């Protein structure tokens, strides 16, 4: 256990940006909220009144706004990390040091996959949640005398809906991880395979396949498998169809019930059964497992000379 923990810590020592970037984003956001968080309606009097419709899910929207930057940063950073992690150790030849330790190639590869695929997004979620709580409190306090649509702004805050929102985001994160696993495994394979520039290996083969397919068959199966996966996953993981302005095919449809697209963030939104019943998810996970096994094999048997 201690050995595994050390392996993970080692990844964050090497890729310091993985924890520095979220911490910096958090600090900047909280500072900005404290400095500029006062809503300037310029109506003069304390006890400001704003009329018009209030989104019923103001808190949820707020929470999502706080957390999205962290999740997006984690997606970018996790991807960059996965592409570099098995290439960097060969670039600086430190692989000979790592391999002189009693750490198996399987455990090395799996810990790196765990770091890039799971721990980085999970860390982003935890920091994002903390920031959304702290930031929301800062905003509310800065605007404590604001009255929206006849409702005191403090009364809009609801700890329960914050918690529920965390559940919804966390579920989405888990679903995204499952969906992203084959991509992550492919990136690691590119990383362990590349003699130089793993980024090219990460991008070029799928792109080439896409172009070749289009040129030879004029079809776009590869594109649909790669691109459609993201789209499909969202619709599997959430009951978006009932709320969204887009239907399952991504086309805009007529607004339901008189122009209000306001999503109500309840647990009803989640559809884990759908997600887990998707054949595509399981094929993706199987592909991820196969590519990871191949990655372990390549690291194990590659002759560094």
């Amino acid at each position, binding site marked *: 256990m201690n*050995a595994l923990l050390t392996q993970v810590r080692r990844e964050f020592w090497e890729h310091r940006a993985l924890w520095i970037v979220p911490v910096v984003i958090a600090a900047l956001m909280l500072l900005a909220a404290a400095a500029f968080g006062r809503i300037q309606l310029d109506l003069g009097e304390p006890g400001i009144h704003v009329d018009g419709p209030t989104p019923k899910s103001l808190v949820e929207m707020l929470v999502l706004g706080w957390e999205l930057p962290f999740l997006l940063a984690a997606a970018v950073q996790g991807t960059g990390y996965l592409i570099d992690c098995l290439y960097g150790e060969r670039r600086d030849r*430190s692989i000979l*040091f790592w391999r*002189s*330790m*009693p750490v198996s190639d399987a455990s090395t590869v799996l810990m790196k996959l765990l770091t890039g695929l799971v721990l980085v997004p999970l860390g982003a979620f935890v920091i994002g949640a903390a920031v959304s709580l702290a930031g929301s409190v800062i905003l509310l306090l800065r605007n404590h005398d604001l009255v929206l649509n006849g409702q005191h702004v403090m009364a809009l805050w609801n700890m329960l809906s914050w918690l529920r929102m965390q559940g919804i985001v966390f579920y989405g994160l888990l679903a995204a991880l499952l969906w992203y696993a084959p991509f992550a495994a492919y990136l690691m394979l590119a990383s362990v395979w590349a003699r130089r520039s793993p980024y090219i290996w990460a991008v070029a083969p799928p792109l080439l396949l896409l172009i070749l397919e289009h040129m030879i068959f004029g079809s776009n199966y590869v594109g649909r498998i790669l691109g459609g996966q993201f789209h499909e996953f969202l619709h599997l993981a959430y009951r978006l169809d009932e709320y969204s302005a887009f239907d399952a095919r991504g086309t805009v449809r007529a607004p339901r019930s008189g122009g209000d697209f306001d999503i109500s963030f309840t647990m009803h939104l989640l559809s884990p059964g759908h997600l887990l019943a998707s054949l595509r998810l399981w094929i993706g996970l199987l592909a991820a497992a196969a590519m990871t096994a191949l990655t372990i094999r390549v690291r194990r048997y590659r002759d560094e000379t």
Partner: protein
Amino acid sequence: MATIIEAKNLSKRYGSFVALDDVSFSVQPGRIVGLIGRNGAGKTTALKTILGLTTYQGNVQVLGIEPARDRNALMSQVCFIADAAVLPRWLSVAHALDYVAGVHPRFDRKRAEQVLAATDIRRSSRIGELSKGMITQLHLALILAIDARLLVLDEPTLGLDLIYRRQFYDTLLNDYIDQERTILLTTHQVEEVENLLTDVLFIDRGRVVLDAAVDDLATRFQQLTVAPQHLEQARALNPFYTRELFGRTIMLYENLPADRLDGLGELRTPGIADLFVAKMQVDAAPVAASQGASAQGASP
């Protein structure tokens, strides 16, 4: 204790290049074996097979383990320094200690700290900030604090200045006296390890050309500085190597009783460096090689 390394009929090719050509040797516990050869002779390939870092044909057992099969089990008992400065530059000294302490069950952190205390290396430094000599010191401090049964060193002092090289081998020797450990090291700077080794293994173009205990060299090899008047007589005794130096002729003999050379000149046991040069020259000349010093296979 059982044999530490047992290699039988080991071969390795890279494309058409034969790095190891049917090599057999063994290493007994507590020995310090020098694997000596020129650049590209196959030293590093031999070490890689022992460490399970490459595929090969033939049979290798290290501590009773087949390296290619169970590298993990092997690495908890075997340490190696692949060459100077492969420690990752971004790692700090303190984290290097944390890491090895975390993953290695046989690492004694206190011991590593003791060795480090004798150096100028600061805990907070990143390895990239250290000089090459200091990096090697750090690596050695880490490795020596591991209670391993076999220590493999591949050109550990390459690119270091004389002071660091001397310190390296001194530290190694002092630590070695403490524990019953086996060391296998490669170098092409033979003179540096001459007094350290208990056994030598000369390797050239993928073949073992000499496998001997240092203590046996005196009975097996003679170096004769020939008196000018006995030149013909000395030549008739089939030296496997002849060298002219400052107008004097030096001849090397193998498996020739010393008394047969009595009176022909000044007689002594050749140093390992001299022997190495001689063996390499012989090996380079196939005709001479067939006379005296054919490639030796497994030692008994």
